[in-house]
């Protein structure tokens, strides 16, 4: 926990699905200026919904049931809808999940970017168009193209340019590299990272890709079944995971020199609303014991700036990381 200095902090985020089942349950997040925080976990863990909850855009029929988000000390929940809208884009920007679908197919990218600029600054049409062309030229996209004429990488870069154009303080990047070639992935991450270094942008990087996370993230939060199960400095979490789930994810990540056969985590994540009574990961956990099934472990401090929701001690977790063989 970074404490009071965080640029954006979320407390007790809770998002419920149509049946009332918790999809995101009691998530706390702190994003520091100039730092990339990675949010990792399997599909369905609630990563995207957490990101959207920060923007106040939980898509129906899901809805945000509880939680507070403050940006630079301002409680976003207390803002009038119009002011809340202005925070989107200019305060907290989003790079959406699917670049193929996130651009308006019938409008030129330049016009779309200019529109975003004009929504946040008192620019004339001409000024906005010139600024939009420049922002797109920077990422190698022609403003007069329609989205369907762009490659996947160009679309993603155009979306990042759109998100960064109003100079946001926080960027939520939802799987920005998921559908891209490896070489393009690096370019896209560098684009975001440059803004972080130069302007102190705070980034929430939602990702499956632990390689990308290791490359750019300062902190890592691991989500499982709607909760954060481990959180801490990226280097520490990725080199010495304290939660068996993090260890399982790391064992799956491709790595040079690692054995080609990777052991998947057995079983599947639980359905929302059908969580086991104790630790949600217990049914799949290699180190689960009786107490894990009895009560859910809360997040607790575990070393410098680290928290984990697991009953295992340091030593037990370290042994787990080395594996039984």
């Amino acid at each position, binding site marked *: 926990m970074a404490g009071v200095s965080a640029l954006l902090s979320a407390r007790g985020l809770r998002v419920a699905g149509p049946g009332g089942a918790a999809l995101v349950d009691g998530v706390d997040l702190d994003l520091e200026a100039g730092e990339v925080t990675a949010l990792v976990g399997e599909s369905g863990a609630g990563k995207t919904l957490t990101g959207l909850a920060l923007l106040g855009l939980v898509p129906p029929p899901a809805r945000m049931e509880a939680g507070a988000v403050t940006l630079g000390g301002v409680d976003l929940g207390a803002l009038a809808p119009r002011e809340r809208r202005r*925070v989107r884009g200019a305060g907290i920007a989003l790079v959406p999940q699917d670049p193929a679908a996130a651009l308006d197919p019938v409008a030129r990218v330049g016009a779309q970017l200019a529109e975003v600029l004009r929504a946040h600054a008192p620019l004339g049409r001409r000024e906005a168009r010139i600024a939009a062309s420049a922002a797109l030229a920077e990422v190698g996209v022609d403003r007069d193209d329609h989205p369907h004429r762009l490659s996947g990488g160009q679309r993603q870069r155009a979306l990042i340019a759109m998100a960064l154009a109003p100079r946001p303080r926080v960027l939520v990047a939802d799987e920005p590299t998921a559908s891209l070639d490896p070489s393009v992935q690096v370019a896209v991450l560098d684009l975001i990272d440059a803004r972080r270094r130069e302007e102190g942008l705070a980034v929430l990087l939602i990702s499956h890709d632990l390689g990308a996370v290791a490359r750019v993230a300062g902190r890592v939060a691991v989500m499982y079944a709607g909760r954060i199960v481990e959180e801490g400095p990226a280097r520490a979490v990725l080199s010495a995971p304290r939660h068996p789930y993090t260890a399982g994810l790391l064992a799956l990540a491709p790595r040079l020199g690692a054995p080609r056969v990777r052991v998947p985590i057995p079983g599947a994540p639980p359905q929302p609303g059908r969580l086991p009574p104790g630790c949600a990961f217990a049914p799949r956990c290699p180190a689960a014991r009786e107490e894990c099934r009895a009560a859910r472990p809360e997040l607790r401090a575990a070393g410098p700036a680290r928290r984990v929701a697991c009953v295992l001690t340091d030593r037990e977790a370290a042994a787990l990381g080395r594996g039984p063989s």
Partner: protein
Amino acid sequence: MRAVSAYIGRRLAIALPLLWVVSLVSYLLLYRAADPVARLRAIPGVRPEDVARLVEQQGLDAPWYEGYWSWLSGFVRGDWGVSATNGGAGARETILDALPATIELMGLALLVSAVLAVAFGVVSATRPGSGTDLTLTGVAYAGFATPTFLAGVLLQLGAIWMRDHGWAIVPFAIGTVLLLAGLARLRRGGAATRAVTAAGAVLILLAVVLWDRLGGDGTTILYTGQRFSFGSEGDLLSLNHLQHLVLPVLTLSLVNIAVWSRFQRAVLIDELRSEHVAAARAHGLSERRVVLGHALRNALAPVVTLVALDLGAMFSGAVVTETVFSWPGMGRLLRDAAVDRDINVAMGIVMIGAVAVIVANLIADLAYAALDPRVPLGGGRP
């Protein structure tokens, strides 16, 4: 640009054989329908030798292929034959006399129904399941279920009844309440409030129009088609003329508003769920820009296509509407020509209708390509 004109040329070239088939089928149907002079023979006092002269003059005793050939060869030369009913005037002149009235009626009805259908569709789609949406849905189903002739007659009867009872006060009262309620909330209210205000204003206007007729002599003004010609001095935009238009245009628009607004609602609801609309919200665009600038712009293309495809059906509606309101247009002329076996006039109108439908479809495809850059003209690469 050249690709577009080449495309248009290709489409028009394909249209020619289509028009030929339309003419052949229509001719056969009209020719086989009945003996063209049976009605004449039945009229007492019509001399058989006059009938024989008509048969001779119009070539009615020839077999169908000879009749068709002479009609076709005349038609392409611009000679559409003689009208059997209009005092021996040319069929083409008879039709062209009636054409402006139909263009006026259909054009206005097209405008009114397209604008209202899109507006109702947007209002419904942005608040699905709300009272406003359910009301519009109910009205749309009622409009869809009411045949055009019934709607026309009911509107006429309503207008007559209100005139006789001085009940222009009814729309006036409702309109005033709506207008005041709307104005009171206009500053804070959304689109629904504006719609209520507008509806109130329209009702008051309607009441004033009705009232204007109460003491006057032109008591049939709302429900008959005493139309002014295009040429006569400035009459086209007179209050009197516009009053004549109100009910026929409304009658012809009802079904279209019902169907198109449902379609607009469905397409727009889908579009509002799309990723790029969610992304536009995340970029901080106002809801108005998101709905009208992005979602509706995407949702218009399919509606434009439906509107163009429906133009043919709209002409059938015009035949009924013009008949009910004695509107002196091509639709009523077609109905009369069909009843009177005036084959040259009927054929001319059918051909004009066919050309209009083909052109409307072409315009729809061009509009679709213009509205959606992903759609290539004629199946090629964009």
